[in-house]
């Protein structure tokens, strides 16, 4: 299949890639750019493991075509930590044991980060509903909710 050429920005870096028109942003990230931090759990937008932001909007990268993302700004899990310094959410996920197998973790972190940008002081219910698009099969969600609430508190007082 004939590929198309796309120029865009990912985690602040200018990036060029070629992709087939059927390839999703997720395929591009993982298979063309080898940015494998973004995970595929379903390919149909039902699990949230592939969450990224596209021009600041939280999306499932499996439901975005690679061909659509020219001249956009994309943020993935790889852009979350600043050098060696983890984002407070990343640190709180570790502290609260909010991850077990970890396959859903990048998507949950990207989604949680977006939540706290929109709502720095979410209630437990708001956290649970915001994260309802991110499936986790290991933790039962409780420690994730606790970690997000704790990170929010820390970020508010910072």
């Amino acid at each position: 299949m004939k590929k198309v050429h796309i120029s865009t920005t990912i985690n602040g870096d200018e990036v060029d890639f070629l992709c087939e028109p059927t390839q999703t942003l997720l395929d591009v990230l993982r298979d063309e750019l080898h940015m494998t931090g973004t995970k595929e759990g379903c390919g149909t937008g039902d699990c949230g493991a592939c969450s990224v932001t596209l021009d600041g909007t939280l999306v499932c990268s499996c439901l975005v075509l690679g061909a659509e993302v020219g001249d956009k700004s994309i943020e993935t899990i790889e852009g979350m930590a600043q050098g060696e310094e983890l984002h407070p959410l990343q640190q709180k996920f570790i502290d609260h044991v909010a991850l077990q197998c970890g396959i859903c973790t990048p998507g949950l972190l990207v989604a949680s980060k977006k939540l706290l940008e929109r709502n720095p002081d979410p209630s437990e219910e708001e956290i649970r509903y915001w994260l309802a698009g991110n499936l986790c099969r290991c933790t039962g969600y409780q420690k994730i909710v606790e970690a997000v609430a704790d990170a929010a508190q820390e970020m508010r007082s910072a």
Partner: protein
Amino acid sequence: MDNLRYEAADTLAHAAQLIAAESGDVRVLAGGTDVLVQMHSDMIEPDLIVDIKNIPEVRTIQQEDGGWRFGAAVPGLELMDHADFCAAWPGVMDGVKLIGSVQIRGRASVGGNLCNASPAADSVPPMIAASAMATVFGPNGSREVPVQDIAVGPGKTSLEKGEIVVSFSLPPRPAHSGDAYLRFTPRTEMDIAVVGVAVNLTLDDAGICTAARVVLGAVAARALLVQEAADALIGTSVDDAAIENMIQEVRAACRPIDDKRGTIEFRTKVAGVLAERATKIALERARGA
């Protein structure tokens, strides 16, 4: 799909021209949350994808003639973030807020929800209840179509080849109007309506219902506007007896199927339950407005 092409249109005319020129299967891409799923599961194998979301008309929200107009490709999240629109049409927003997850609502639009033509689409019953009109653009120019006439059956619309839904207009609301949408799903989020009910009411100063629209989702091949259910409310104070009559009409109108998401019996019964609950919310909103 072996030679799929992707084209982004920047004007309506451009989109119409691209679609008209393609002899194979064309899909219009707005948020993509249905089209990409269907491609992923090989349900569709398009030859051309026309991305319309860069066309200004499909992305704007504005007040118009005392009512509202919003683009068909406006993502749900943008509507949710529009405080004035949310205040004006809370029932429409009840539906929009239930589409998929946060991630899905970041992309999915009311236009896409409508044109995907699923009988279970959450934004469609409240839009019909709101008497929304769709502006459709195609090779023969523009036309205005009531939203209830767009989807005609699962996956099927009344749109001609080359036609796209550009935007929706919602009429001005009389005083004491309120709308609401409720659906039943086994999960709290990330689910498909087993039944959905939208109610839109207007009361007079004495609290008597002067206008009503009751719309059911997922109980037939397309969303059902049930005039008999509305008639049961009009002229009443929307008291328990009127609501009971409305429930009977709602259940009588249901013609659902048994499928993986629900049974005929369950859907019919719950349609009545949700109709009552949605009516009470709409009533409360109407009294407060």
